[in-house]
């Protein structure tokens, strides 16, 4: 997955070097995710990848108790949506016990090995 040649490859490369990176439009400045070849605000094709402060708020989280695919993590596993302070909404996972997690919890990204996927963003509560 982290060897991906897809549009989002710089995101996963960034994670390996401890950075959370997204595309910023060089024409209108809009920060976009998911990765795309076009700015959804001004339709420009010109963009650079830029590191952001990896902090945000948990919008919600769920726990999968069954596997919908052989390539999915072994259940039970947790998936969260984090609204980053930079405005991007990122699907990710949370470190620690789910009993301690809450909607609205402030979190910061760590960059950790996750199953066989290599180093990816994993968010943990801000102390």
């Amino acid at each position, binding site marked *: 997955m982290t060897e991906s040649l897809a549009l989002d490859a710089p995101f996963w490369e960034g994670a390996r070097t401890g950075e959370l990176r997204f595309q910023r439009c060089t024409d209108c400045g809009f920060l976009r995710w998911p990765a795309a070849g076009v700015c959804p605000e001004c339709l420009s094709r010109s963009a650079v990848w830029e590191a952001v402060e990896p902090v945000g708020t948990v919008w919600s989280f769920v726990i999968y108790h069954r596997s919908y695919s052989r390539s999915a993590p072994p259940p039970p596993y947790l998936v969260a949506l984090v609204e980053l302070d930079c405005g991007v909404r990122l*699907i990710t996972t949370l470190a620690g016990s789910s009993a301690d997690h809450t909607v609205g919890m402030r979190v910061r990204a760590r960059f950790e090995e996750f199953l066989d996927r290599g180093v990816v963003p994993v968010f943990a509560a801000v102390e």
Partner: protein
Amino acid sequence: MNPPGAVRGRSAIVAVGNTEQGELPGISADELAVEGLRRTLAQAGIAKGAVNGLITCKSYGGFGIDTAIGRLAGMNPSYSATLDYGTCNFSLHLATAVIEAGLCDVVAIVYGTTQRSQRNTFSTPLGHPDESSVYGFLNVAGPAAMAFRRHMSLHGTTEADLGEVAVSQRRYAVDNPLAIFREPMSLEQYLAEPYLVEPLRRSDLCMISDGAACLIVASRERARDLTDKPVDVLGIAQQTGLRDRQNADQWMRPWIEQVAERIYPAAGISQADVDALYIQDPTSMWVLQMLEYYGFVATGGVGEAFRRGAVGHGGRLPLNSNGGQLSEAYMWGFLHLCEAVRQLRGDAGERQLPGIEVAQYCSTYGFMKAASTVLARSR
């Protein structure tokens, strides 16, 4: 001037029909769709040659394309098209638009699927493929469960509140011979189910099934030739949320509210005029959301609304009287409209509800778009 979407009976549904639902091996999805069409025309006594419009719905595995269905059904309609998504609201709205434009005046809307026999596991990621698949964010249950946990956190909703949706719909399905799930289910039984995607349980999610459904829609003039019990399309409304995750609170689908604002002026009725409500339900959470956005219950008040008999089985406002996708069958919303039409025509047999003059159907295509239709018994 009429408000947008004010169809006001210029199109009417003249027939509905369906095949058995469940697991139907040994027949292709397209043959099943044509079987749905055959049964619908035969029951209504409408000749195939009277149909001059065909709107099909793409089904799992790439089936359901209008050109293939037209060939199989031996039709050269004046107009045909395929929608890449279901719920039937979108198909019905397109039918009213092409009838209004005069391109045709009797439209068959058909949908057939063998996704159960084809073993559709719904394991494709939602949202961005790479990011979702890295973390295992699969199936509509994921975002629906996210939305429900957030709703619980913001509004104090409980799992028992949400359980009322599935329990009520199961109660209707007990009386529906077409339904796949007809064993009664109590709230205690619901709460005893293990989580699938916490906080959602098995009964919050619809099971995949095979089957076909069909509706025949005609202009006001042709409708009178084809049936003595037409059901008028009073009003239609739609709104998309195509920007997806760049929209704030996308999985709460706040843009549904815009459909709610438009549909009653379009239909020329007030919400209090609705005698029976249908809400498309791949998950019970979508029922909860739409009950709130359309203003049938106060935000956070869904459980209470069921418990005090405002909505649901035995309540003042019947809701998904066929059992919905959760208990009847997964016909991607098409059977909700079939049921609404049967109730309005007085053709619902043992589960006929008294005094149904106006019915409303609300549906969504996942996180992409929302639609609503108001139907009324023709006077």
